[in-house]
Structures are given as structure tokens and as C-alpha cells.
């Protein structure tokens, strides 16, 4: 289904205004045709890579996006350089993508349901996770907890950002702690794994969501295919690490084509919001002055008796 991921940083290939050919089936597609079909090849179903902004436009209701922590930028704590300094690479990535980092986060409404949305962009240094991605994730979780909004993470990543050394590795620990804070409330958390989601992102928050959705053909693996080939000294099976293989192996909940993604997302969020636990909302409101549940099923609230002393928080584990 999918082309093999290159961990190298490559420019998006759907940004130009003219026609381009599908990398999978070679069919020539016009930009309009692609855009009208969710950037999915109408011929073979290949899901083209989306920029973070395009993804937000696709998922968030028009005009509701409210970016959080937009002012965060990577520092260069290691003064890292290889053939070029890290700082130059960052400048270039910002210039090329128009993004300050490989992830943008914000609150928005999705089919009228409030949510915190975070979207990674593979075009920004391979969607690698450094200090800023970790900090943005943390702030997104804080916002979700503060407002009692569910959290949706659209992932695309080549892994940790080498150029921040050990600090990038520790973002795995940092984002994990943030997820644990979410589950203490609990706030629903859905991750959407797009092509490719690998390494430290897959091995931290991406696989810690309550429900894990993948796009068709997405490569999802901890180690990159090349690393594995070098280790086992043979070529990999054709479907190695693809979303479809991950589904068979029990690692994800479902594969959802991009055209159905927004609807499905809202259905699941509504479901997770609509448990009988909503009967206990009054407790939370009293406790922390937080707004109550707002899922479409929150009507259950009125029908079910509230329990004054229910030890509901024990649920979290």
C-alpha cells in the first residue's frame, strides 16, 4: 500500500499548484482533484502526506482553531552540528514549512465538539520529537485537563530528534507523564497514526491513547525498516510495519480512510464521553469548578442518579 518511508527530510510533494503523479500508481492527478478527495489518490487509495495546517483544516470546524504555545522554538542545547549546524536546519525547516516546530497544538471544535488537537508535520525535520514537541504535548494535555476537552493527536514522526541528544529521548518520558495526568481525570485521548509514525513517538504517547486509529498504508514501527534489514541481514516482508499488519497483530484499534476520519473521530469521542461516569460529573464540578461532560450522550446524566460518595477516581487504574 504505502511507499517505503524515507527518514530523510523531504519536502511535501502535493504543495505545488499543478498536476502531480501518484507515487504509488503513477496516475497523473490535478491539485484540485487531490484536494477534493482528502489528498487521497482516487485511483489507488494512496494517502498523500498532509501538512499540519492541511490536517487542521480537515479536522477542525472552520474558524474554530485556536493555537496554543505557538511561540515555542527549539533551542540548540548541544550546539549540535553535523554537516550543518542544527540551528541552520531549524531555520530552513521553518522557512520551508511555515511552522515553528514539527507539531502544532490548539483547541478547536470538531463537528461542534470541543477538543484539543495536536498535529505533527513530517516535513519539519522528519516530524522528529525534541524539547519543543514534548513541551507542546504537555501544554496540550494541560489545556485538555483544564477545560475537560478530549485530546486528539495526529502523529507523523521519524522518531526522536537526534540533534537534541538525550533531551530528545527524555521527551518520551515527559509525554508519558502527561498521558498519565490525562488518565487521572480521565480525559479521553485518541491518537491517529499517519504515514510514517516510528521510533520514540510510536513508543511513547502515540501508543498510549485510549483508542488508536491508523490511516491506510501508514508505516508504524519502532525501528526503521533499514535498521532491521541491517540487523537481520535479509529483506523485510512487503507488508512490514504497515497499518494493516499492525491491525492483524493487535497493535491498533482500527484503520480509517481519511475521508471518514472526522466523522469517526467524533463518534468515538462521543462514546468515550458518554459512559455512566457522566453521572458523577456533578462531583467533579463541585471539586474543581471544571465544566461538565459535553458528549452527545451526556443526556444520560439527567437520567441516572448521582452518587454522592462514589469512589470514582479509583477507576483510573
Amino acid at each position, binding site marked *: 500500500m504505502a511507499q517505503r518511508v524515507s527518514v530523510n527530510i523531504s519536502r511535501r510533494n502535493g504543495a505545488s499548484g499543478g498536476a502531480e503523479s501518484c507515487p504509488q500508481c503513477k496516475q497523473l492527478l490535478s491539485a484540485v482533484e487531490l484536494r477534493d478527495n482528502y489528498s487521497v489518490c482516487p485511483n489507488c487509495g494512496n494517502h498523500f502526506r498532509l501538512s499540519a495546517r492541511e490536517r487542521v483544516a480537515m479536522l477542525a470546524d472552520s474558524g474554530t482553531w485556536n493555537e496554543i504555545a505557538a511561540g515555542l522554538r527549539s533551542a540548540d542545547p548541544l550546539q549540535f552540528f553535523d554537516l550543518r549546524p542544527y540551528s541552520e536546519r531549524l531555520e530552513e525547516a521553518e522557512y520551508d514549512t511555515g511552522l515553528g516546530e514539527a507539531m502544532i497544538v490548539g483547541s478547536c471544535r470538531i463537528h461542534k465538539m470541543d477538543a484539543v488537537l495536536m498535529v505533527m508535520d513530517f516535513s519539519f525535520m522528519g516530524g522528529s520529537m525534541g524539547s519543543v514537541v514534548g513541551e507542546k504535548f504537555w501544554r496540550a494535555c494541560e489545556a485538555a485537563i483544564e477545560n475537560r476537552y478530549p485530546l486528539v493527536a495526529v502523529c507523523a514522526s521519524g522518531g526522536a530528534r537526534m540533534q537534541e541528544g538525550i533531551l530528545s529521548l527524555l521527551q518520551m518520558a515527559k509525554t508519558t507523564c502527561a498521558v498519565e495526568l490525562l488518565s487521572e481525570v480521565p480525559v479521553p485521548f485518541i491518537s491517529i497514526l499517519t504515514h510514517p509514525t516510528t521510533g520514540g513517538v510510536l513508543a511513547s504517547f502515540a501508543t498510549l491513547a485510549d483508542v488508536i486509529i491508523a490511516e491506510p498504508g501508514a508505516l508504524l514501527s519502532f525501528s526503521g525498516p533499514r535498521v532491521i534489514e541491517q540487523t537481520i541481514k535479509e529483506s523485510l516482508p512487503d507488508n512490514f510495519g504497515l497499518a494493516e499488519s499492525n491491525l492483524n497483530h*493487535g497493535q*491498533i484499534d*482500527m484503520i480509517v480512510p481519511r475521508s471518514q476520519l472526522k466523522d469517526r473521530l467524533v463518534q468515538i469521542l462521543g462514546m468515550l464521553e458518554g*459512559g455512566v461516569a457522566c453521572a458523577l460529573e456533578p462531583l467533579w464540578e463541585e471539586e474543581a469548578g471544571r465544566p461538565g461532560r459535553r458528549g452527545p450522550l451526556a443526556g444520560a446524566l439527567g437520567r441516572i442518579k448521582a452518587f454522592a460518595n462514589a469512589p470514582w477516581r479509583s477507576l483510573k487504574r
Partner: protein
Amino acid sequence: MAELKRLPTLPGVHLKDEIAKITHRLRDLGLSRQVDKAVWDKVELARHAQRPYTLDYIHHMFPGFIELSGDRCFADDAAIVAGLAAYMGRTIMVIGHQKGRDLAARTRRNFGMPRPEGYRKAQRLMILADKFGIPVFTMIDTPGAFPGVAAEERGQAGAISAALLCMARLDVPTVAVIIGEGGSGGALALGLADRVLMLENSIYSVISPESCAAILWKDSSEAHLAAQTLRLTSSQVADLGAIDAVLPEPRGGAHRDHAGAAHIVKEVLEDNLRELEAIRPLDRKRERFAKFRRMGVWKENGLTLF
């Protein structure tokens, strides 16, 4: 309709009458063949190829059902289907064994015989439900857990016991309905619930009649004799106090009217959930434990206790 919904049976209440009846049971095999007939009919109905399966109930009861997959360890087991459903103003987690109706589906569903991955998926999703206060509804319909070398190696026994422990622990309300074949530990793994109900033509048994006959008479063709002595029909199981109620089926049996059967289950589920939701979680758990503690019949210092 309302009076059909729940026919609660207190453990052991009818037991003495039954015992009196059984005492008169004819030990002559020739005669017992006749008594067999009704019991064996139930076994065949429970296994009827047109009987509604978990996905049929889901189809009729939960139009917006969202299936969730995977044990996050090894595989997604298609012999157990699970997912979220909107139901009468709340969300529930639906989990059930799934047989297949045609050959391809049967193979894919492994004839409804789960491997450890199926039980681990069920466990994972019950924990998810618990986290969000979502009640759990299970449907039981399996000949048993799959007996295979690889399934054993991956911990079939431990997967079942872990699912049982998970159900014992849940803070949310749980309702189990035996919709067809309730076979052995592989069935019970989804059956440690606040309410355990059986459809009229379902069976619930510690061992399949065939295996029982093979062990006792060294002849699996004696299965209908075994079926009779195992007391596995819904009314017999209810009389033993092993379930909470028997649910009637549409005229002629559930296999003739899937929608009708689903309608009955749907109404009964709502009544049971409503009752259970009114109980505080800790109390509900205590009642669950107390119920299963009562299961069994024994003598203590000469006195028979139920």
C-alpha cells in the same frame, strides 16, 4: 412484555423440587432416550446455524457500534468481537464471542473458539470501559476456548483467569447474556458479571456433551445422554442457581426472528443496567462477590447447603 423481561431465579429455590424429580429419573437407558429428546433439541437449537450471533445482535441493537481491535501484544482475535455502542442514552462496551455463518467466516472466526488474544482483547477493553465508567455487556456463544498447541503456549489458561479477575475487579456494571453455546471456561471468561442471563434455547455447560460422553462412556455418540445428565438447558441451569434469569425467545426460537430476539435482549439489558447503575460501585462489587460466593451446593457436617 414487561413481565417477560426478567424472571429472577434465586439460587436453589427450585432445587428441591428438581431433586425430587430427578430422583425418579429412570436409570434405564432405553427409557432415558425419550427424556433426552427435549434436552438434545435445546442443544441443537443453541448451536443452530441460523441462530443470531453476537454480530447479529449488534446489528439490531446498536446501529452506531464501533469495533475496537487487538490485544496490543500478539494479534486481533476475530473469535471475539468488541467495541463501543451508544445505548439508551449512555455508552456501553459490547464484547462477545463470534461464530461464522459460512465456511469462510467460520474459519476466520475459528468457529467462535478464542485464542488467548481474544481474552486479552476483552480484558483490555473492559479496563478501558472501567476507566471511563462505561458499563460492560458481554454475549457468550462459544464451544470453548481453542485447544491448540500455540494457544496453550501463549497462555490460554492465564488469559482466561486474567479475564475473570478483570471482570471481578470492574467498578462498572456488567451484564452477560448467554445467547447460544456457553461452553466451558472459554465461555465463563466473559461471564463473571453482575447479572448473568440465558436465552431460553441456549445452553451453559462445564464440558461439551460430546467430550463428556467420550470420557464417561468412551463413546461420543452418547452425547445426548451426557447432555441430559449435565443439566445444561437454561431452565436447568437457572434451577441450579447458576444464573440470574432466563430470557424468553420469540415464537419458534431466536433463529426464526433475529430482530425479535434482539428486541428482547435490548429491553432486558436496559432494565438490568438501570438497576445496577443505581447501586454504588463498591456495593455493586460486593454484591457480585456475594453472588458468586453462593455458587455451589455442599454438605457441611451432614447438612446440605445451597
